[in-house]
């Protein structure tokens, strides 16, 4: 189907077909990344502004890389070096960026709802690179893309998300997307970080690690989020690791051939055993690579790119 959205604010408003359209475009772009000349002219002459008001390595670099591969120019604004520190509001910052002739804004912000808010202020595409604890749609898209590469289909597959679900935008976006794609989603972790209320989003809530991991086709690990979480939810990192950390014994409960995922950054020895992170089962770095093709797809589609034109890309 053709894509008609100006913005990508979240997974929740998307249909299954729309998600699959993004995957199709991503597949096309992934082939380009294996060539010797890794650029296509699709977004030549356009300027993408990365407005990153929270720290980021992967997402920021992946968006810069994706924009560059599409032949767009890209400018990154980091919060601490901008007039945000002088008290300028998001609204005024966005209006100024628009007045500076930007064509797309990619926004990462610590407040949930910020991307939606921004999309009503500017008439150019707004791509949500993470809004507080709400959504991180491009992460869920690259996660889904990676899962499909390994599992073929998501229908009826058991996917477990393990860790601090309460404060995680990655968890929310993945719950939305994996349920739309037909998977059985289980969220697991300590009761203080995984309240039963997540059942209303269509996930199974489990506080017993064995039940969560047994026969899962994939496990997605989340980092304990110090910056959004207050210290009252959990005694210590040591207790988390001993109760919920993924080690070799626990990884053996997964279905044979299951994959281990993590959005990054990883805390070696906390939510994941260091060796496991580097093992054959871990697809963590593949996820990162897939993050470029999926973000190219999103930038391409939101700026009016046609899926049909991608079927035979120019060399």
């Amino acid at each position, binding site marked *: 189907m053709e894509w008609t959205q100006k913005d990508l604010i979240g997974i*929740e408003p998307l249909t299954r077909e729309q998600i699959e359209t993004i995957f199709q475009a991503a597949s096309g772009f992934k082939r380009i990344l294996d060539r010797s000349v890794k650029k296509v002219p699709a977004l030549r002459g356009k300027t993408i502004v990365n407005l990153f008001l929270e720290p980021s390595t992967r997402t920021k670099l992946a968006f810069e890389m994706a924009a560059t591969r599409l032949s767009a120019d890209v400018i990154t604004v980091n919060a601490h070096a901008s007039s945000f520190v002088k008290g300028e509001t998001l609204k005024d910052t966005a209006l100024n960026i628009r007045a500076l002739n930007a064509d797309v804004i990619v926004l990462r912000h610590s407040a*949930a*709802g910020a991307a939606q*808010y921004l999309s009503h202020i500017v008439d150019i595409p707004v791509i949500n690179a993470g809004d507080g604890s*709400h959504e991180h749609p491009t992460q869920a898209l690259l996660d889904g893309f990676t899962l499909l590469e390994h599992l073929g289909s998501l229908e009826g597959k058991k996917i477990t998300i393990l860790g601090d679900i309460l404060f995680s935008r990655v968890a929310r976006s993945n719950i939305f997307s994996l349920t739309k794609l037909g998977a059985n989603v289980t969220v697991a972790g300590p009761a203080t970080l995984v*309240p039963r*209320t997540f059942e209303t*989003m269509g996930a199974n809530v489990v506080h017993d690690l064995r039940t969560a991991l047994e026969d899962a086709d994939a496990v997605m690990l989340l980092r304990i989020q110090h910056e959004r979480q207050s210290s009252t939810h959990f005694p210590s990192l040591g207790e988390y690791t001993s109760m919920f950390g993924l080690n070799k014994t626990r990884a053996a409960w997964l279905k044979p051939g299951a994959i281990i995922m993590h959005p990054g950054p990883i805390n070696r020895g906390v939510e994941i055993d260091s060796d496991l992170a580097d093992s054959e089962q871990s697809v963590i770095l593949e996820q990162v690579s897939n993050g470029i093709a999926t973000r190219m797809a999103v930038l391409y589609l939101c700026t009016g790119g046609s899926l049909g034109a991608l079927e035979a890309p120019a060399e």
Partner: protein
Amino acid sequence: MSKATIIRNGRIIDPKNTRDEVADLFIRDGKIVESLAPEEKKRAETIDATGRVVCPGLVDIHVHLREPGQTHKETIQTGSWAAAAGGFTTIVCMPNTNPAADTAGTIQYILDAVERDAVVRVYPTGCITHDRKGEVLAPLGSLKRAGVVAITDDGDCVQNNEIMRRGLEYAKMFNLPIMDHCQDMALTRGAVMNEGEWSIRLGLRGWPAAAEDIIVARNVVLSELTGAHVHMQHISSAGSVEIMRRAKQRKVNVTAEATPHHLALTDACIKDYNTNFKMNPPLRTEADRQALIEGLKDGTLDIVATDHAPHTNYEKDKEFDYAPFGIIGSETCFAVTREIMCGEAGVPLNELIAWLTCKPAELLNLPAGALTPGAAADVAILDPDGTWTVDEKTIFSKSRNSPWWGRELTGKTVRTLVNGKTVFADGEIVG
């Protein structure tokens, strides 16, 4: 020569005097009278109220007038205009001004501004604690002498139970009711909306209803201990209603209010992160909303009060986490409560009028809320079926932060009189 006014042929609803009938209302020299001499009737100012409701000017014991110190949001003058436009003739303002109203000097400042600028009656409240910090009692005796009608740390909530206990004991000496904004701060740090299905879905930090219930229970226990009158402000949770119900069964000296927005709206409204649905306490679930409606109906909750909380556009036009809490409510109160309590919940109009007139007046012992002969002629003429749009022309508050902005509402104020003199009519402030 006396000044006479006749409000003709309206449906007079005066719950204090159990009156609900179509009749003429007579006013002489600013006071309600039983009748006028024929000669007076001939020269009287006549106001036609055919098809209208004529009731005591409404009473709102919870408004924020923002003066001194935050007059970019509202002033005593503009807040009194908003009240008049909503049919209110007596309002009680909260002390979370800047500086806080915790000394006689600030109370006098407010009373001077009221005298100079307000078009309706305004009574001040004072703080329970110095600067509302919850650490040291404010000079309650001095505040009483300066003219406060109640004390409250509204905006904040005394967390230290010893301080709250001593505040209740001390205030009781002066017959000062204590009004409490019931919130456990430790349970709600950083929270911006009700904790529930919607806060999980939206990724916003949630506020459990327990944080209100716990303080309501604390207040019930301390009221029992001290005998002081504690009034729970803006109750929002079913749990609080249940605690109040059992407390009243035990005849504890507690009362409670509900706001129009908590009676009408739920946390589902926040789905688009619209900050005009962000307030403290937060909008909660449909089950909570229904419990509030039941609570008003069975007398567990005593009155309606608006918690009119003006904020400028540029302050509210922000990311949900950063916007201040609160919405205006004076002008929309009658329409919203009429739709919910009379329309949806089937309560007769005179019961709604009681929650907006004699009951709040009695709660704080104010000379208002009734059309008893001899009383000041503070009168509201309302059109329960009149429609109007909430916009710049109909809102007299300095601020615009209403969830009903741009919407058409049913239930309008036709005319408001204070001391027999019209202060609002035909959609305009008079004089």
